[in-house]
């Protein structure tokens, strides 16, 4: 196993999660950042590296009053924060900065001070996808799933189980938005959004944010909280047009990012105690299990239907309840990272006993981008 040089020493979400109509998006960034600073026992003036997505780094850095010597504005969708962690680890190792703050926030539900996202009519998406009636992510992200199901023999009931199992995890989490247990029948009878997906297979729409602080592992021991080390990282992008993916029965961005992280970490799949796979929609955990190499795609649906990822199962997956039941402000990757850090610190509401290695896999856009971070609590 790799001896890793960088650690997370501060991690926090916004004070509130869910519906926050009295706070703007930029202030949600600040709320998360101040909570993470307090968690790490630092001052804002200690931060010399800064990364964020959607908003420019200068906007949030100036709002916070910090003067970075290293910035990263990588903005590839909801997994941007995985890429920030990867880039920050490299920057710290290279000596470009010492203490990096990464923030995310989105007023996804209340829409207060939210940065507009526009698709121009002369962009490639505007010319070759928008005219066919695509609108929200629900109208595009599930487009590959029927092909995935046909190729790999996956059933509607198996994909419905993704939502059922994640609700079981959410029921253990006081901060989860949706905690009432659901059944496969509930999922398959819920309101149709974009066949084959119904509302219980689509992510929540909420407000919130989160922030992480990274520094060198040598300094990490002096911080108040248990350090969480970065063991392996990977990233890639494919296409902003879901129609132009190389294939629909797998994600190329996943297949590149995931194995990169495993190779860097020097671990095998059986070493993984805890797993997060960004679940904007219910098919993503299946793609993730297959493309990260946990099992052939043909087995992913039955693996989840058999209860292997539920509380007490052999591969605890999306233990905060995920984007389907915990929260989803629009760019969920930060919340997946926060849950991995909680699990590695041993303080998660649904703690996996004795977990030592956590894999956190994110998606950006509609399979457009991917980032994978592997954490450990052992140096």
């Amino acid at each position: 196993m790799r001896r890793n040089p960088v650690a997370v020493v501060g991690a926090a979400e916004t004070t509130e999660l869910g519906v926050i109509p009295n706070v703007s998006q930029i202030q949600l960034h600040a709320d998360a950042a101040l909570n993470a600073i307090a968690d790490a026992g630092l001052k804002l003036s200690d931060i010399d590296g800064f990364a964020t997505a959607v908003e420019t780094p200068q906007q949030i850095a100036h709002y916070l009053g910090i003067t970075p010597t290293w910035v990263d504005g990588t903005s590839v969708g909801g997994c941007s924060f995985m890429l920030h962690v990867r880039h920050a680890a490299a920057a710290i190792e290279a000596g470009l900065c010492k203490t990096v703050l990464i923030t995310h926030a989105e007023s996804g539900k209340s829409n207060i001070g939210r940065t507009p996202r526009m698709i121009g009519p002369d962009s490639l998406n505007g010319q070759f996808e928008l005219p066919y009636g695509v609108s929200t992510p629900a109208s595009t992200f599930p487009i590959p799933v029927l092909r995935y199901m046909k190729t790999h023999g996956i059933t509607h009931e198996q994909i419905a189980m993704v939502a059922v199992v994640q609700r079981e995890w959410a029921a253990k989490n006081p901060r989860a938005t949706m905690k009432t247990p659901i059944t496969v029948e509930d999922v398959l009878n819920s309101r149709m959004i974009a066949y084959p997906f119904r509302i219980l297979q689509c992510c929540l729409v909420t407000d919130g944010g989160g922030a992480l602080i990274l520094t060198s592992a040598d300094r990490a021991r002096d911080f108040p909280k248990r350090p969480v080390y970065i063991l392996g990282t990977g990233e890639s992008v494919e296409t902003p047009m879901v129609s132009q993916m190389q294939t629909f029965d797998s994600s190329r961005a996943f297949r590149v990012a995931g194995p990169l992280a495993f190779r860097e970490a020097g671990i095998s799949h059986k070493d993984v105690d805890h797993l997060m796979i960004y679940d904007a929609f219910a098919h993503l955990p299946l793609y993730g299990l297959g493309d990260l190499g946990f099992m052939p795609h043909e087995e992913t649906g039955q693996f989840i239907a058999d209860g292997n990822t539920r509380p007490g199962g052999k591969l605890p997956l999306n233990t905060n309840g995920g984007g389907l039941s915990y929260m989803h402000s629009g760019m969920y990757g930060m919340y997946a990272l926060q849950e991995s850090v909680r699990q590695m610190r041993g303080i998660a509401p649904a703690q996996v006993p004795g977990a030592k290695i956590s894999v956190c896999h994110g998606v950006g856009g509609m399979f457009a981008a991917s980032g994978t971070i592997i954490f450990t609590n052992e140096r």
Partner: protein
Amino acid sequence: MAEPARARPKPTPETQHFWDGTRANELRLQRCDGCAHVYFPPRPFCPACASRKVSVFKATGKATLYSYVIHHRPVPGFTPPYAIAVVELDEGPRMMSNIVDCPQTPEALELDMKLEVAFEKLDDNITLPLFRPAKG
């Protein structure tokens, strides 16, 4: 007041030949003169080998249904439920489209069903390539 219309593409210099083609009821693709790779969306170089020597040609318009969703929420220019599909052209590339002359149901929309291009004129400049079940 006019009905809300679907989003209208605006061509760029690199895509103009495609939209000129659909206006003439032709589906035009590009093929690399060097490596013979056929690709979409349009660009003046081959994404497989980087050659700038590429040619525009008229595709057969034949395709199969690769995957789709049936969208149940309102979008300007559409009456839900309507399918947003990705079709695989006989020449290889895939493109997003809508399936017309066909019930918008899972029973009628069978993966791998044969399709053929159908042109829908939006205005004097833009004609969209849609697809319908192949005849015969």
